């Protein structure tokens, strides 16, 4: 699959803060790429450089193999910023028309698309309402339509899940998969690993302005080996953290995910569990993104190439 976007060693400093410190990654056509990291890791700054809002201090961004300084290809991008915002006084249809027009589309071409999208999001009756009259959830939907309306090749979503209720979260997740299946390319940022796991084909993990891990989800997980134990049990699991072969453990009420130390035998762990709790499930698995994230960010900060 062809690269649609390549970020090459970009850096951005604000005062004394190195927000982005030599980030490189590529986004391939027809995939969903997840840009992961904690709040303040440099995700939004990276995205703002891709969208041309900031110019990188150094490094460059390539669109379909051509170097572009800032946002020379902006019309091909649909961008949903983390800071959502619409003109509150405008009617929904006018707002959407404006958003498409500043992406270089003609009003007459866009109007039928507006109606189709409003229908898809069940907002047809809100067409002529003012934005400020809409509920927050509906405003989010309008903004999402505004991101997609001009039929962009690359859709960039900064924390698309933030502020959504569980139902809308599922709707958005489904929508992104549909778009990907239609051949669109999506770059999304999130700090919620579980969400990224459900959506992303490829991940780029950023920490302190640097890429610490990248690759397809399978590659990333595979490189960590099957050294993770998923455990379900009845009883008090507090002791699990103290076991000699366990490096890290996240323990919930009656289940746990254990990361084993290098070369540890899972069989020993099972033996240690059996006298203390009643084991209902014991499974060797690849680690979750959450565990990988903690492992990478908690222990080392050097870039770790997984891709071949």
């Amino acid at each position, binding site marked *: 699959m062809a690269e649609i976007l390549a970020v090459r060693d970009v850096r951005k400093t604000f005062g004394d803060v190195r927000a982005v410190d030599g980030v490189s990654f590529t986004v391939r056509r027809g995939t969903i790429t997840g840009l992961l990291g904690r709040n303040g890791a440099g995700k939004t700054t990276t995205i703002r450089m891709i969208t041309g*809002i900031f110019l990188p201090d150094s490094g460059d961004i390539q669109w379909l193999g051509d170097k572009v300084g800032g946002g020379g290809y902006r019309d091909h991008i649909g961008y949903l*910023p983390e800071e*959502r915002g619409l003109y509150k006084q405008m009617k929904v249809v006018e707002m959407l028309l404006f*958003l498409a027009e500043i992406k270089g589309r003609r009003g007459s071409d866009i109007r039928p698309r507006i109606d189709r999208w409003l229908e898809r999001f069940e907002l047809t009756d809100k067409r002529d309402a003012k934005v400020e009259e809409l509920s927050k959830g509906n405003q989010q939907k309008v903004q999402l339509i505004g991101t997609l309306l001009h039929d962009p090749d690359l859709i960039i979503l900064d924390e698309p899940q933030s502020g959504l209720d569980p139902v809308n979260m599922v709707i958005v997740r489904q929508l992104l998969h549909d778009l990907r299946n239609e051949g669109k390319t999506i770059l999304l940022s999130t700090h919620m690993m579980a969400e990224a796991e459900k959506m992303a084909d490829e991940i780029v993990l950023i920490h302190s302005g640097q890429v610490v891990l990248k690759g397809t989800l399978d590659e990333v997980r595979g490189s960590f080996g099957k050294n993770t134990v998923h455990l379900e049990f009845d009883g008090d699991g507090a002791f699990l953290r103290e076991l000699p072969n366990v490096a890290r453990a996240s323990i919930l009420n009656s289940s746990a995910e254990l990361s084993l130390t290098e070369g540890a035998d899972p069989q020993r762990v099972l033996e240690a569990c059996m006298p203390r709790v009643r084991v209902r499930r014991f499974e060797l698995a690849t680690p979750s993104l959450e565990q990988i994230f903690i492992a990478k960010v908690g222990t080392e900060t050097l870039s770790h190439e997984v891709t071949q």
Partner: protein
Amino acid sequence: MNKMFVVMKREYLQAVRKKVFIIMTLLFPFLMAGLMILPGLMMAKGMGKKRIAVLDGTGQLQQAFINREETEEAVDPKQEARKAIEGGGRRRLPSQFTIEYVNEAGKDIDKDSAAYMQRLTRDKEAPDKLEGVFVIPAKAMDDTKTTLSYYSRAATDFITQERLGRITNRELQRIRLAANGVQPDLVENLLQDLSVDAVQLSRTGEKKTGGELNFIVAFILGALLIIPSFIYGQETMRGIVQEKTDRVVEVLVSSVTPMELLSGKILGIAAVGLTQITVWLTMMGLAGAYGAAVATMADINLRQFVRPSVFAYFALFFLLAYLTYVCVYAIAGAICNSDKEAQQFIAPIMMLMMAPWFLMMPIIMNPDAPFAVAFSLAPVFGPITMFVRTSVTEPPLWHILVSVAVSIATIVAFAWVTAKIFRIGILSYGKRPTLPELMKWIRVA
């Protein structure tokens, strides 16, 4: 350019569709007219009839205080209109005075006046209520150091006071001259003041009179030039702050460059301002046409007050003034996070920029004085001052050219700085930047 037009179109349509805009556009001329005409009317009419007691210690001045209605022969209304417009003064007792003349010759004027002064404090509806008591001491006829006194509840009615003084003095002069052997029927002619006509001489030798109206026209057009610049500058600032608080700005700058956004905004709002001014000028034109009809009847040539070139200068200097001020407002909008903060930030700067407005009177009266010339050639103050000068006199062409060039250079410099600050400022929430930080923004952006 195309995207700038999209931004401009949005700004324009959103603004002109607002009810506030429509109401303001239609009502403002009436408000203005009211504000300009009403005080004048009130002054002229003295807020209605005034009942004044004149206590004459000399006992010889009764003739001067006989009420006009009783003595006046019919006056020519055409002549009256001319005088009113061209500032010819009245010498007779104004008709709104009702005079209660008291001959105090040989009486104790101090004691008697106390009773009249009592009546000043009566209720407005009381039949014997007095608005003023004018005391002429007995020695007024001979002693040139005598002071006349005008008593009223407010000591600020200087117009009434001035008129009574003038009437008294004229009568005293007449009597003194007559006493020194001048024939009474010659006195009026000998004392006649000559009126002064203000004649403006153009470079081509063309003469025109009517300075007073010219003054008013310059003042109105000056106000019409400066007020919208400030109103719409303010509007631009609020728009930018609003985009920040509504968080729209990030979507915008991911689609258009800050320069396209800034120029689209500024030009869109400029178009709103021009629309409004066009409406106002049309309304003024209609009123003017009516006025012209009246003026023609009174044999007044309106062309002598307003040269058509004034309107060309108006359009030119309005744009220069607007673009200068709006950049300053745009910077304020870009670096502040709320309307309130922006207002506080802009207030002192605005006071400074309004300097030509406060100096309008002296500039109109002395359009070629060094300070007026300096202001008209200075950046920021130039457009408004130069416009006022062109409308009341004919400044040398090089003054106009230098002023326009300085203004354009100022606008380019301001726009450059504004674009730099705008680029960073619109995305920075939180604390307002300090001056050193601003300088850094200008350098790095």
